[in-house]
């Protein structure tokens, strides 16, 4: 188990390094010069050149990367060109909002997703199954920012059940969590249902029945435990997407999370902030993949004790 972890951690670090290289390269060929934006309409060619020199933007790309990487290893992500605050501080603040939004919507997604998935599988081909699955497919199909706008108007403004924007306390996160969460609840429900159906055809399910166990014990301990493996994969990548994909929801509900920070930063070409942000998100994604692998081992002993091959 230990070398399994070490190998995965090393691979994770490699991935983060690769992502930092790719991001740095892309940000350098993205058109639009941050200094030009900084100086705005009053910029004259000489001042632009002078400022670029001061910020070290005139050095060759690889040198800039080495400086940046060197600082990063010391924990200094540099400071934002425009907000003049250390990138790490900005990321931590906005990550706080994103974590709250992501955890609410993820909790919603997992609970509803698993519940719908198991119910649909247990009542396979009955009306419950059909209704839940159409709802699930519907959940995936609607563009989440469109759903967000409609929720905001209907439940926020007209019915005044929930605040329409901001992020002060729990009630502020209800609508955004619904808008963001439905899509992932739907995908978890579908994968759970299919996985449960596939598992229920296995021989050990018949053995469980032959033992005369109670229904819910068969469903939960035997079917669900085995169905969990593919669900974990989807749930893992979904968490990654929620953490990074919530930018549209954040902009509609004015929650200054990481997604919105990144979109604005790219708009302003705030390179250190974008670079730091992408590293942060990549780090989160890689950590999630690690957790997913560990969860695999916890749920499936064939991996934990070696010997078994995990199907992709």
């Amino acid at each position, binding site marked *: 188990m230990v070398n399994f972890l070490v190998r995965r951690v090393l691979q994770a670090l490699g991935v983060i390094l690769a992502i930092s290289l790719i991001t740095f390269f892309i940000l350098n060929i993205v058109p639009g010069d941050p200094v030009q934006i900084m100086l705005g309409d009053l910029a004259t060619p000489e001042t632009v050149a002078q400022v670029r020199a001061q910020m070290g933007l005139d050095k060759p790309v690889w040198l800039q990367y080495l400086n940046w990487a060197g600082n990063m290893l010391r924990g200094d992500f540099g400071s934002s060109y425009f907000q003049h605050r250390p990138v790490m501080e900005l990321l931590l603040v906005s990550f706080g909002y994103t974590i709250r939004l992501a955890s609410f919507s993820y909790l919603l997604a997992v609970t509803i997703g698993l519940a719908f998935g198991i119910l649909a599988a247990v009542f396979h*081909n009955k009306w419950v199954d059909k209704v839940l699955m159409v709802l699930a497919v519907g959940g995936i199909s609607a563009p989440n920012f469109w759903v967000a706008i409609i929720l905001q108007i209907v439940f926020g403004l007209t019915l005044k059940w929930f605040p329409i924007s901001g992020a002060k306390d729990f009630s502020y996160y209800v609508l955004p969590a619904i808008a963001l969460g439905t899509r992932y609840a739907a995908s978890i429900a579908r994968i759970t249902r299919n996985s449960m159906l596939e598992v229920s055809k*296995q*021989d*050990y399910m*018949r*053995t*469980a*029945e*032959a*033992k*005369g*166990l*109670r229904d819910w*014990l068969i469903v939960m*301990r*035997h079917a669900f*435990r*085995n169905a969990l493996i593919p669900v974990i994969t989807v749930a893992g990548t979904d968490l990654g997407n929620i953490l990074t994909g919530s930018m549209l929801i954040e902009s509609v509900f004015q929650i200054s999370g990481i997604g919105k920070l990144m979109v604005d930063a790219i708009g302003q070409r705030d390179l250190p902030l974008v670079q730091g942000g992408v590293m942060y998100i990549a780090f989160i994604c890689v950590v999630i993949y690690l957790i997913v692998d560990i969860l695999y081992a916890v*749920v*499936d*002993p*064939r991996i934990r*004790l070696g*010997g*078994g091959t995990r199907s992709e």
Partner: protein
Amino acid sequence: MSDIILDVKDLSMSFFTDQGELPAVNRVSFQVEKGRTLGIVGESGCGKSMTSLCVMRLFPSPPGRIVGGSILFHGQDLTKLSKKEMRAIRGKGIAMIFQEPMTSLNPVLTIGKQLTEAIMAHETVSKAEARARALHMIDLVGIPMPEKIYASCPHQLSGGMRQRIMIAMALSCKPDLLICDEPTTALDVTIQAQILDLINRLKNETGTSVMMITHDMGVINEMTDTVLVMYAGQVVEYAATGELFSRPSHPYTTGLIASIPSLDREEEELNVIPGAVPMLYELPEGCLFCPRCPYATDRCRKERPELSEIAPGHQVRCFRYSSDGKEERP
């Protein structure tokens, strides 16, 4: 007459599919006596596994349904029981082991968990007691180091050991009847013999009666007291094992016995029953075996024979034997 613990009368079960009603089990009757072993034999697809699943009511219920007959277990008709009552019998009254040991155990639960689960489903015992019982069962089925096995997972055991665990699991609540659905087919020969000996030993020690389903006439000969020969959902011959092997009457039975390769007879060619088992949705008019029967007559092609008793305890479904049991030569 030792008392009969399982009495199946005219059991019929069909699958209702879009190709119409498919009679998988067609008016099958048999009895299992206490402490004795009943064998059910036939080519695959003849309904022998389906019959055992009917007894346990484990067949897939949306397409399949019992359409007739009764299954009396200690006088109780299992076809009339509610799900809850049936659940109380499964594993306690009647236990079952299956053909594929590799996939019959839950891969993500430890052996110990799956054993204690069976015990605690039927008896209110403490965890410690259940654990002790489980360890005793592992030892009983002849597996060394029960503690280690208790804590390990299915993928760490060989096929033979897993089948032993299945047997331990089945017998953990001292059932009256153990149904074995081709328990050794997936195992190689040496392990096969050990498993069969184990079943016999446990049968004698615990007095459980056994219902052995197989397509291997050798297993029938060695293990069973009475034999039921099935073909395309129907019983074609029912007799004591000795009687069946000494006086095989139905052409299908003689064909089966003839196709057992024996070491001493010098035959170049194995004799084989030509043709194949008919599909349930293309059952022939008359006798179901007629297309493959060397003695087929016009009558066989038009009428379907009934079971007739040609000797005490020896029934055959074939026109060649009139009701008085004499063998008529064509």
